[in-house]
Structures are given as C-alpha cells and as structure tokens.
C-alpha cells in the first residue's frame, strides 16, 4: 500500500516538555473571527452547539404549535382555529418534533462529544460535518417557509396516500413536505456517514470497541440505521412528488396505484427512525447516569449489545403501524411477535440503569432527576407500546389518543428527558458554565408534572374512543374533563420548558468558571478544559480502559491510560487515524481547514429544491450545474491535505 517515502515518525512529547505546543495547535485549529470565519467553521464543537441551539429553536416552535392545538381542544365545540389551520398545526408539530428537533438535537450532542470522548481532534469529515448542519438548517427553513405561503403540510407527519395526492390536497402544502424531506435526508445521511467513519477511524490509540462509551454505541447504531432506512423515505417522497407533479399513479387508489405501498415505504423508514431518535439519547443516559451514581454502569456489555440488537430488530417491526390496514393474518402475527421481542433489549437497558442507581451512591441533581424521569417514562411508554404491539388491541386503539399518549411518552420520555438531563450534565463542557441547580429543580419538577398531567389522561381519552387529528369534539361523550386536564398539563409543560430557557440565559450571562471535571467523571471529554480548546487534545491520548480518569481508584483496573504524553501532530492541522478493530495508530491525517464551500453548496441546493417546488425547471437545471461545480471545487485534491502525488513536505 504505502512505501517509506510518505511515512513519518510522529513526534511523541510530554506536555511538560513542550509548553509551546498548545499555542501552536491553537493557531492551526482556531476558526477565524468574523462572518466568513463563522460560516466557514468546521470545528465539531461549534457545529455541535449550532445543532443543539437550532434544534431547541425548532422544539420551541413545535411546542408553540402544540399549545395552540391544546387550546383548541380545551373544550368541546371550540372554534379557536379552523379545521384547515388545525391540520397544518398538528402536521407541522409532528414534522418539527420528529425530524427537526429529535434527531438533530442528538446529532448536536454526538457532534460535540464524539471526538472528545474518542480522544480525537475532530470528526472524520469536518467539512461534511459543516455541510450536514447547513443542510439541516436550510431544509428546516424550507419546510417552515410553507407557513409564509399559507400552505403548511396538512396531512399529518405520516402523510398517508391517497389523501396526500393532488386531487385531495391540491395546494403546495405536501410539495413543501415531500421536497423538504428529501432535502433533509441529505443532511441526515451525510451526518450518519460521518459518525460511522469517525467511530471506525478516529478513536484514540487503545480505545477498542469494548472501551467506547455507550453514547458512541447508541449513535453508531443509529447512524448505521439511518444509512439503511433514510433511502426508503426519500424514495417514498420522491414517488409521491412524481404523483403530485407529473400525474403518475404510484400511490393512488385507482389506475394500478398502491396506496399501501406508501405506508410500507414510510414505516420501513419511520419505525427504525423511532429507535434512531432514542438510542443516542439512551446512550447519553447510560454514560451520564452512572457518573452521577459514582460507579461504572451495571452490565456494560449487555447494554451495548442491547443497543445494537434494538436497532437491528427495529427494522423488522414496521408493519405494526399497519395492523388496521387488513394485512394478511400471518404478517400481522409476525410483526406483532417481533414487536413483543423488541421489548427485551429495552428492558435489559432499563434494568441496567435501575441496578446502577440501586448499587451506586447517587448525587441528586437536576441531571439525575431528569434521568430518573427518563426511566420512569420509558417504562410507561414501553408498556403502552407492548399493549399496542398486540394486533387485536391495536385494532381498537389505533388512531386514538391512546397512541398519541404512547408516542409522547416514548419520544418526550426517552428523547427530551434524556436530552435535558444531558444538557444539564454537559452544559459546563459546552459553555464553561454550570446551569443553576435551584432553578433546575423547579425546571425539572414543573416539566415532569406538566408532562404527565398532559399525557397520562390521554390514555383514557383514547380508550374512551376519541380519535386523533380531529379538530374538535362534541360535548356529549364526556371528553371535556380529560381534555381540559391535558391542556392545563401542556401549559404547565410549556412553563417548565420556559424555565429551562431562563436558566440557560442566566447561566450564559455569568463568567466561565466551570471546572474541567465538575462531576468527577471518568471519560476523556472531562480531561480537557471547559470549554475545550479548538484542537481538543494537545497530545493524542492513549487509552487502556473504559474509565481513563478513574483508573487510580478502581480496584480491577485493566491498564494505565496515558493522557499527558503522546503524539504531538503539530505540523498544521493533523489528526490520528487508528485501525478499526484494535485501535492501533494507522495513519497521520491532514485535516482540512475551514471552508466556505459547505455553506455555498447548501445555498445552491436550496435554490435547486425551491426551483423544483415552483416547477421552474431551467432554474433547477442551472442549479444542478452549480452543485457540480461546488462539489468539484470541494473535492479537488489538495497538496496541503496530502492528496496529490507531490509530498507535502518540501
């Protein structure tokens, strides 16, 4: 493969021997000030923070939509919003929370944390990383621009055909959604590819798979799932767009169309998606909770294995969303059984968390409370999931508020509560400031009580037979009280989230005084400053155990990690690639500088999708040429990156 000609002997230094090293690295890695620098930054920490801030902005928008929905449903026979407005609100609420908040916020955490917990200087593809963020932002704005056109998607987030076809949905509403989802799929896919390759290549020497934090397992499994699942939904939306724009009949009920094919393609994607947006959050909890219990997680191997198993089985359960469509009984039986089985790995993780708390010495702070709330709601949402996994029960419950309750317990419980706990936990690392604990407790309890008051009654509302997605209800069946409780609960939940915003705002006004390792945590991100320097690690650490910072006081230690002596890699922006299985040093990587091309490519893509939306075909064709030019410039082999025949050292 390689000859000695291009080989180098990287300099191994101790931090004490080379006091000028951090400053040299800072000059090489720092993002330039100003707008151009901001647009061009490929620093995974900035990108991670941008992801989180943007995802929270979408969370607030989606929450606002939900509050309007609940206001409309507070009493019977209300006309606060029109049926059409109501349709747009619940559709955009689902789209926002599931696609524009739930995964991106986790991508934010993973982007920020991956190189830090893996002992690396950046992600495998820094420019691709910036690109995935910009495309996420652009596609989110693209879908939200539908409100400006007065035509937001209005057929629900799963958008069933033939209702979503031109004859029944003549406006541009569903075109915004169809094209926006294909657009967003680009971001999700390249982001996932980046996580996968980062895990395979960018771990510090000695960090074998068995030494990776669980959050790496979670995002790694979810990213593999994304690579396999996202094409299904991109294709489904593409075919839908052909139906709507060119008069094909893939999903129509007549002329040879198959409306059920839409449901298959959609759920082949969307059920794995449910695991994709919870596994990384489960990973955050699996890493942070044990630290707050001052012990390693119980059953590391089981939890890591359960994570992978959940993702794999997650691909075999999609049709449990379709029991009511008249599938053959044998198919229903299979999908029902698979849906029961998937409860097993979830239970493994749950018992591991409980055992960790049980046998640890918990530090009861806001993050800990959120993690416990996470477990409680995971159990409730899991049990209601097992209920709906039974095909006969599902026939009764499908499309009622019981399912609404289930999906919110799962998504708010396992995603939002994990994320909020993770935010309290990693906020000092991200910003150099701790979040207020007193306000944090108020924030947790109001959110927790508000959430349960809003969604616990919905189980009952559903069992009483109230269908979801109907803009109002008559006074007769006695649905007033449960709905009013849900509305008051959701208002309380809104207050809780508002307290979080206040807490973040107050903390950001304070000076950066957070210690490097406020929780006495064992993993590598806590070995560097809060917030970390642009280059993360001045010397490349060598890892000998799962808990590099706890080795001194753990009795059964497997080795001694070396954090203050290692490769300097200070000839410009350099990073280390290691072998896939054993994590041995393999290659010295030349890392790309900040680049405006990811941003520019995103701009051209936005023009492209807008052209398709308004059917300005020649603008679309021109922008395809623009895409080609941008991509070519981006990928042009660079001598500085040691991609061309000339040796980089002259």
């Amino acid at each position, binding site marked *: 493969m*390689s000859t000695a000609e291009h080989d180098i002997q990287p300099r191994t230094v101790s931090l004490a021997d080379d006091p000028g090293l951090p400053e040299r690295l800072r000059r090489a890695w720092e993002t330039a000030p100003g707008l151009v620098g901001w647009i061009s930054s490929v620093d995974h920490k900035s990108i991670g923070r941008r992801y989180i801030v943007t995802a929270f902005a979408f969370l607030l928008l989606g929450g606002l939509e939900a509050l309007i929905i609940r206001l409309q449903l507070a009493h019977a026979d209300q006309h606060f919003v029109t049926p059409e407005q109501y349709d747009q609100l619940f559709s955009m609420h689902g789209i926002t929370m599931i696609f524009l908040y739930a995964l991106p916020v986790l991508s934010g955490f993973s982007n920020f944390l991956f190189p830090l917990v893996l002992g690396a200087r950046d992600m495998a593809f820094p420019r691709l990383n910036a690109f995935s963020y910009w495309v996420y932002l652009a596609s989110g704005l693209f879908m939200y621009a539908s409100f400006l056109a007065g035509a937001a998607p209005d057929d629900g987030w799963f958008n069933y055909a033939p209702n979503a076809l031109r004859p029944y949905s003549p406006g541009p509403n569903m075109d915004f959604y169809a094209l926006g989802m294909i657009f967003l799929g680009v971001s999700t896919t390249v982001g996932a590819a980046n996580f996968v390759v980062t895990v395979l*290549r960018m771990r510090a020497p000695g960090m074998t798979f068995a030494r990776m934090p669980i959050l790496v397992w979670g995002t790694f499994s979810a990213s593999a799932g994304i690579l396999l699942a996202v094409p299904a939904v991109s294709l489904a939306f593409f075919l839908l767009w052909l139906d709507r724009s060119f008069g094909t009949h893939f999903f129509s009920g007549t002329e040879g169309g198959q409306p059920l094919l839409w449901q298959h393609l959609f759920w082949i994607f969307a059920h794995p998606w449910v695991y994709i947006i919870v596994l990384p959050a489960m990973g955050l909890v699996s890493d942070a909770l044990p630290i707050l219990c001052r012990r390693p997680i119980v059953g590391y191997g089981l939890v890591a294995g359960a994570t992978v198993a959940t993702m794999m089985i997650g691909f075999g359960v999609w049709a449990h969303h379709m029991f009511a469509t008249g599938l053959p009984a044998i198919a229903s039986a299979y999908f029902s059984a698979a849906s029961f089985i998937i409860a097993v790995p979830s239970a493994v993780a749950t018992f591991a968390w409980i055992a960790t708390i049980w046998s640890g010495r918990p530090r009861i702070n806001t993050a800990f409370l959120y993690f416990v709330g996470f477990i409680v709601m995971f159990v409730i949402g899991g049990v209601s999931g097992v209920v709906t996994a039974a095909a006969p029960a599902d026939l009764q419950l499908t499309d009622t508020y019981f399912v609404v309750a289930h999906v919110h317990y799962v998504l708010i419980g396992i995603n939002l509560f994990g994320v909020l706990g993770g935010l309290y936990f990693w906020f000092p690392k991200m910003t150099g400031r701790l979040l207020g604990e007193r306000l944090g407790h108020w924030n947790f309890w109001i959110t927790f009580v508000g959430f349960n008051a809003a969604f616990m009654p919905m189980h009952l509302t559903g069992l009483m037979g109230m269908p979801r997605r109907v803009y109002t209800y008559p006074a007769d069946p006695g649905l007033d009280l449960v709905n009013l409780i849900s509305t008051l609960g959701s208002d309380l939940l809104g207050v809780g989230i508002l307290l979080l915003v206040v807490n973040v705002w107050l903390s950001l006004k304070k000076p950066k005084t957070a210690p490097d390792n406020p929780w006495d945590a064992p993993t590598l991100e806590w070995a560097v400053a809060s917030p970390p320097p642009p280059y993360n690690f001045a010397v490349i650490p060598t890892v000998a155990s799962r808990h590099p910072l706890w080795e001194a006081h753990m009795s059964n230690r497997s080795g001694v990690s070396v954090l203050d002596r290692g490769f300097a890699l200070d000839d410009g922006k350099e990073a280390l690639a290691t072998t896939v299985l054993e994590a041995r040093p393999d290659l010295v990587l030349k890392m790309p500088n900040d680049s405006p091309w990811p941003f520019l490519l995103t701009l051209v893509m936005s023009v492209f999708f807008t052209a398709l939306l308004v059917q300005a075909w020649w603008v679309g064709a021109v922008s395809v040429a623009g895409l080609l030019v941008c991509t070519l410039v981006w990928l042009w082999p660079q001598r500085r990156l040691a991609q061309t025949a000339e040796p980089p050292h002259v």
Partner: protein
Amino acid sequence: MSETALQRSLPLGSTGHKAGGWFGVMTLIVTEASLFLYLLFSYYYFALWGKGDFVPSPLPKFGLSLPDTAILLFSSATVWWGERAARKSSRRQMALGLLATIVLGAVFVGIQLVEWSQKPFHFNQSTYSALYFTVTGFHLAHVVAGLIILAALLVWDWLGYFDKDRHVSLAIGATYWHFVDVVWLAVFFTIYVTPYLGVR
C-alpha cells in the same frame, strides 16, 4: 498500549484504502444500495399485489439490454485495469483505462436512451411505465454521475496528481463505478429477466 506501539512510523495523508474517503464511499454505497433495494421492493410489490398483469406485453426484450449489460460489465474491467496502473505509477495506462471506461459508459447511456425511445409507452401511461423509467432513470443518473467522476479523475491524472501512493480518489471513483455496475445487474435481472420467470 505500550510506548513501543507509538514508536512505529506511520503513513502521512491519504494512502490507499486507509484514507477516510475510502471508508466514506463505503457508507455511500451502503445507503445507495438501500435506495435501489427499496426501488426494486416497490417494483416487486406492484408486480405481486397488482390486479392482472403488471408488466405490459410485449415483455421487455434482450436485443439492446443484453449487449448493454455486457458493455457495462466490460467497463468495470477497464476501470480496474486503469486503477491497477496507478499502483505502478503508469500514468498512460491510468489515462487509457479511464478513457476506455468513459467511452464504454457513454455507449451504455446512449443505448439506454435508444431503448427508452423505442418503448411503446410514455412515462406516465401506467404504473409500470412510470416505475420502469424511474428505476432505469435512477440507475442512468448514477451512471452519469459516475461518468462525471471518471472525467474529473482523468483531468486529475492528466495534471499529474496520482502516483503509486497518492491515488485514493481513483480507488474511490473506481469502486463507485463497480457499484453502479453491480446495481445494473440487479435492475437488469428484475426488469428484464423476472417477467419471463412469471413475475409480471
């Protein structure tokens, strides 16, 4: 890991299949293969669940499609030959291999377009016609993308960017081209062969 493990000398920069881009193209292939899997899933879904025959008669013919398949397979061999040349720094063989592949790929595209024009149906005449053009169109778009990549590689080769160590983009481009060829086999089998096996 012992200190001695850190004393080894290491390659610098993009080298062979150790480059990040090599891993990157693998993830691209996984996700693109999934895309075609779902496309063909849709095809079989229509063929198996539709009322009456999904594939209109006359069934797809082999007159153009079989030679076209052979041409594409042969182009995999030429790109392999060109990539092999990189390992011994033979820029002329590299260029020849790439050029031959581009010509063969362009012939494939041409024959596909002739085949399209000879079809007795237009795009949205039936679900079959729409899906036929969608599936083969997706593949054709991938061939065209591959041709653009090969053209860029040819230019880069001409500029002297590659030698026996630095030719990662060539390896990546060639791998992508092989993938596009393998996908064609699946498309060809589905659209041209299975109707004769009773899937219609």
